[in-house]
């Protein structure tokens, strides 16, 4: 029997309560007219959500994971390597799974036509990449560190530097879009999108860590960012 969730549309209860932000978070103004307010309906587990697209696009090219080599010249900015593992709820690697990323350039400007921030575009940087995880669930991107940028949420509002991550995982229910932040950013406490995740421990899981081992001498600084998706391997998949 399907039950209606209590307490309105606070958001789905991924894993432990409080992992995901609520739909309505008034400090983030755009949620006010876009957050559903009716109670969510609990969807019993079926093949419809324990299956999902493996990856939703054509072949991945070698340059797709190197955002610094997609144009004739090199982009300006601090060259970085971002790497980590994608795991499921059992801590097992999510293999051969698509990751899509996008970000602002080093000056804090997106290539998107609606970004009006008066910071320069970089003709050598588009800020979009993709790759597949390997057998250990590992991924790796080369890029430049994105800049912080202003937005119009409230007076003097700035987004902390971040890279957007889109992941499919093993099933429809494991689909996740999130943002990776950089350690020690002074803007965290002023950013309603970051703060919408109420649990400080969950907030920490969105922040990458500087990693000297990933750092390549005289080339690029390294950051590690592991991602844990909904879903366990105890699906029918394990029985075949």
């Amino acid at each position: 029997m399907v039950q209606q969730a209590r307490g309105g549309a606070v958001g789905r209860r991924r894993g432990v309560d409080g992992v995901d932000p609520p739909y309505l978070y008034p400090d983030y103004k755009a949620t006010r007219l876009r957050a559903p307010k009716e109670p969510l309906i609990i969807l019993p587990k079926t093949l419809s959500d324990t299956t999902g697209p493996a990856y939703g696009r054509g072949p991945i090219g070698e340059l797709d994971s190197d955002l610094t080599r997609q144009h004739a010249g090199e982009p300006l900015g601090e060259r970085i390597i971002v790497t980590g593992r994608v795991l499921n709820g059992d801590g097992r690697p999510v293999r051969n799974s698509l990751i899509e990323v996008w970000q602002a350039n080093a000056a804090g400007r997106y290539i998107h036509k609606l970004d009006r921030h008066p910071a320069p575009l970089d003709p050598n940087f588009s800020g979009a990449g993709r790759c597949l995880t390997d057998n250990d669930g590992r991924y790796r991107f080369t890029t430049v560190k994105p800049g912080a940028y202003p937005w119009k949420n409230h007076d003097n509002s700035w987004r902390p530097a971040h890279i957007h991550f889109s992941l499919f995982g093993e099933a429809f229910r494991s689909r996740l879009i999130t943002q990776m932040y950089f350690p020690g950013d002074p803007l965290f406490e002023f950013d309603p999108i970051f703060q919408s995740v109420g649990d400080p421990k969950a907030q920490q899981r969105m922040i990458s860590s500087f990693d000297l081992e990933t750092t390549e001498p005289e080339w690029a600084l390294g950051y590690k960012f592991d991602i844990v998706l909904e879903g366990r391997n105890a699906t029918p998949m394990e029985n075949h």
Partner: protein
Amino acid sequence: MSPELTPSQTVGPFFHDALLDEDRSELVSPDHLKAIKIEGTVYDGAGDVVPDAMVEIWQANPSGRYNHPADDRHDLSLDGETFSGFGRSGTADGGKFSFVTVKPGPVHGPDGRPQAPHIMVSVFTRGLLQRVVTRIYFPDEVERNATDHVLSSIEDPAVRETLVARDEGGVLRFDIRLQGEGQTAFFEFEE
């Protein structure tokens, strides 16, 4: 001990060059004999269109088979080619999204009985800190819809209706209202 999940964050306004650089709104050719067209508009709580959303769909093939290793019940192919079951559409054109696909067959429900044919839907947009999840059901499936375990668990017929597409002369219309009067029914997953 299980690792702790990574929280969701909004897709933001600037995803188009990364996520919509390839058109994935046609799961089959519009010339396909079984092709159906699904169209809709995403609205906010003020009734305004949402032109910066991304709508994704996931569905079984006409035999009711998902293209996924957890499902090996029937033939995966559609006319000898793999049917991916995945689609993605932006809403830059006045909040409108569209898909060309085939109608999925019924898949098993939690009690072993077939579910009515349906398509899983995710909506991402600026202002949604996590996606919303809904389902598209089909207007020509009155009997199966009446016994579907999800639809029949919703007591308010008006809420149930938000999950059934409307047949508008060969095009299936499925509008998505994020908030307010006539809000679409959205789901959370059973643990």
